């Protein structure tokens, strides 16, 4: 499902440039990176390590300022964290001194709002965590922690969900389970999702569109549409189409990584190299 046809993108990244001032000099992390995410779309961002994926996501969330460029949510530039944007962090990021209920209550506490109990109960049930409210994060498996983190991120009913390599620390079976869960939740809520991952398979399984970032400084090198209908089954992952797509994306990333000079201008066509 490609919910295009809407003129204003849900989330628009326009010529985003980010320079980090570090002790060892300035670091150009993002260089005029532009990307539009449509309403209800799931977009995955993949790219070589250190290409600025997380920086891009943090900028989208408003947690980071940009050196230049703009992030627009529903056409309006955002200048800081926005209540309509939920984030799922790497490694769950639950507060270890709070039990699961209290962790999920956390966003409401910060906002000074009353928790929406019915919605939370619905979400907990959706991710299969009912009855675990009194447990502390250390008592839960990695997958369960990440489920709780997803519930927390959705608790305030954001219209955009940003996920920063959420399942990177999980084993591959749990990861597949979580991927199906994300799709289920998406079918349920139709939340626009931007998903950062190292796993090309995960990106293809989940996304309407896979965006490949170039090596640092990050910009959009390539984009691929993933045309499979939803709900997707794991069987599609064994098809020729997915196999080919996976390899093309892999080649893009390998090519990006092989480029010696980061500053060098490049088009993705020139730099695809065959892996030895």
């Amino acid at each position, binding site marked *: 499902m490609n919910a295009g046809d809407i003129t204003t993108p849900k989330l628009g990244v326009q010529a985003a440039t980010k320079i*980090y*001032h*570090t002790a060892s000099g300035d*670091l150009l*992390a993002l260089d005029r990176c532009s990307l539009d995410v449509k309403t209800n779309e799931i977009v995955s961002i993949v790219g070589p390590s250190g290409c600025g994926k*997380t*920086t891009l996501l*943090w900028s989208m*969330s*408003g*947690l*980071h*300022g*940009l*050196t230049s460029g703009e992030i627009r949510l529903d056409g309006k530039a955002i200048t*800081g*964290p926005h*209540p309509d*944007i939920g*984030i799922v*962090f*790497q*490694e769950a*990021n639950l*507060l*270890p*001194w709070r039990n699961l209920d209290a962790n999920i209550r*956390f*966003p409401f*506490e*910060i*906002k000074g709002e009353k928790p929406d109990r019915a919605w939370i109960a619905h979400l907990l049930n959706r991710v299969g965590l009912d009855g675990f409210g009194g447990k*502390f*994060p*250390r008592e839960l498996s990695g997958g369960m922690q990440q489920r709780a983190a997803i519930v927390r991120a959705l608790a*305030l009913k954001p219209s955009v969900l940003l996920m920063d390599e959420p399942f*990177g620390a999980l084993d591959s079976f749990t990861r597949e389970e979580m991927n199906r869960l994300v799709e289920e939740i998406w079918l349920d809520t139709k939340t626009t999702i931007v998903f950062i991952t190292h796993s090309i398979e995960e990106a293809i399984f989940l996304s309407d569109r896979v965006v490949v970032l170039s090596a640092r400084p990050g910009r959009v090198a390539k984009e691929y549409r993933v045309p499979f209908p939803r709900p997707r089954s794991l069987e599609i992952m064994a098809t020729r189409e997915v196999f080919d797509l996976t390899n093309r994306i892999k080649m893009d990333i390998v090519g990006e990584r092989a480029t010696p000079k980061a500053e060098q201008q490049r088009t993705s066509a020139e730099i695809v190299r065959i892996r030895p």
Partner: protein
Amino acid sequence: MSDAIPEFSKAKSGDGQDVSLTNLSAFASGPGIQSGKEVAAIVAVAVIVIGGIELALRLFHVPLYIMPPPSSIAYALFDEFPLIAPHLGYTLVELLSGFAIGAAVGLVLAAVITQFPFAEKIVAPYILLLVTTPMLALVPLLILRFGFGYTPRIIAVALAAGPMVMINAATGFRRVDSAKIALARSYGASTLQIFWKIRAPMALPMILVGLMIGAIFGLLTAVGAEMVGGGFGLGNRLTTYSSMIQMPQFFAVVLILSMLGILIYVLFFLIGKKWASWEA
């Protein structure tokens, strides 16, 4: 913007470098007593050790003024307790009030100073000086200025406990987990909310360690100050009994002081178990 580069895949700051309360649990009910066999073994060893000391002291006719046998210490503890009890009260008053003042000031300073890394760098050497200087050394001076009452002792206890609380609490407050702060900020949390909801709970285990060390240093300083001057308190009893060569009574007071120390330890251990066990 000079934001830090987000890098969360690395081990979080603070992991593994802190003394966690539960790790201090070497003997305070750490593993928990499991079976009657263990209880029997503990009792048997205690009997052998104490009985052995008793036997050896009597066998070798060690004079009372060098080392009184355990039985006479136990007797003195019960016999003299009504006379010692008020002094225990005085010492507790000094310890509790001095500790309360010192800990409060230390906690506030730690919370404030860690918010301003630049100021922290400037203040750090003085804090270190306060931590490393034995505050007992100041007691004669304090007595000159404030007389032989409670005041110099309470000041000494506060000066001993405060920096210990502060230096540990500051370590706790400095444990910045940028991912957790980012989480709070993503919901629009204010600096104050980030402090109370993220920094303070994260610092709690280290704060408790600081409070425990501070309390024990406070006890040492209270007793020491009492030994320097003034006519009351457990420290004063120690000098009095030793000058009268009443060694069983002397050791009875030492025993009470040990119990106080253990009580402080167990108290904070239990608080830590209740409020900071997530750290384990």
